[in-house]
């Protein structure tokens, strides 16, 4: 029988979702409940009704990937009237979600730099290119996975894994690869889609994408193309920073100068 810590450790290492609830104030300080999706919680906070209610709330926190302190009555009461004249129990609900994913299409110099920066930010990085000689582990040792494939089959098999925290970056500049990659990404719930290229490449690509059926304004709006913040990046490494900074800014909703929303030469 594994301890709570051992189960937590193993699930974190296998990138499986898990929640840890700890009493931080009130009776049974330090008591724990371990939350595993699809099964009953293990451990106890000291009261079965409290366990049931906190377990339910912690599962919701885990699904939302949020972490924070919650307050209850000794038997899990949550309404203010029930909490008058009673001790409260404060619990720390910590959610461990699998890392977000970044799928990078195109095995070019920019790919290695972007994969490196994405790893620093905690992404699970997949590099994909149809050309066997370029898509090798040796060229992308920092990636978690290197796939030799066209984009279509990858999205077909695994597109449903992608969600709002994830990113797809298309770096090939080659429309016969770019177009299926973008169309594949648009069909998912992925939060960020960045597509690299000069403004001329971008214009041509938008024509090809329209021919492929990308005409809905709210779908076109999802594309960050040309990719990256307008910080004057030149090298692959600087460009990787500009892409990752754009991903952060899109998530936080801060106003930053994206290349997409400007005009004129990208490198001046």
């Amino acid at each position: 029988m594994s301890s709570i810590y051992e189960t937590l450790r193993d699930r974190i290492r296998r990138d499986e979702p898990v929640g840890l609830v700890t009493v931080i104030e009130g009776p049974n300080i330090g008591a724990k409940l371990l939350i595993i999706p699809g099964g009953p919680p293990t451990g106890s906070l000291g009261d079965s009704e409290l366990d049931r209610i906190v377990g339910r709330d912690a599962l919701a926190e885990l699904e939302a990937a949020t972490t924070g302190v919650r307050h209850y009555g000794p038997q899990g009461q949550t309404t203010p009237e029930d909490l008058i004249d009673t001790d409260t129990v404060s619990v720390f609900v910590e959610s461990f979600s699998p890392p977000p994913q970044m799928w990078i299409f195109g095995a070019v110099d920019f790919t290695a730099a972007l994969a490196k920066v994405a790893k620093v930010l905690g992404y699970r990085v997949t590099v994909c290119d149809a050309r066997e000689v370029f898509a090798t582990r040796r060229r992308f040792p920092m990636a978690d996975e290197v796939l030799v494939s066209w984009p279509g089959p990858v999205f077909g098999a695994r597109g449903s894994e992608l969600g709002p925290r994830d990113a797809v970056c298309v770096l090939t500049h080659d429309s016969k690869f770019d177009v299926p990659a973008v169309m594949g990404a648009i069909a998912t719930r992925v939060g960020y889609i960045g597509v690299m290229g000069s403004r001329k490449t971008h214009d041509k690509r938008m024509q090809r994408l329209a021919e492929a059926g990308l005409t809905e304004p709210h779908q076109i709006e999802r594309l960050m193309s040309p990719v990256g913040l307008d910080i004057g990046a030149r090298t692959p490494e600087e460009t990787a920073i500009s892409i990752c900074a754009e991903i952060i800014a899109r998530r936080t909703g801060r106003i930053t100068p994206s290349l997409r929303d400007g005009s004129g030469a990208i490198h001046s």
Partner: protein
Amino acid sequence: MREILDDIERWRLNGRRVVVARVVNIEGSGPRDPGASMAVNEDGEVAGSVSGGCVEGAVVGEALGILHGDQQPKLVTFGYSDDEAYAVGLTCGGTIHLFIEPLTW
């Protein structure tokens, strides 16, 4: 926790007792979000961090105090208004609440 697991495992394999400190709440400006964690072993070795370096020294003191004392978990607050915390230098002006406990679960 993710980034301190390797160190914790190494210490456990060597039979060292371990204390884990986690940020559970911050008020105002705080350098690390809830969930940031740090581990201290009985030799005073440290893994991870819970602030920008402001309170780590004090956390080591608290952790060793727990290991050599009553072994009880505790909620500790460092903040601008707290004299002791101000002494350890949380210069960002925020308040940080840490839960510090022996790894015996």
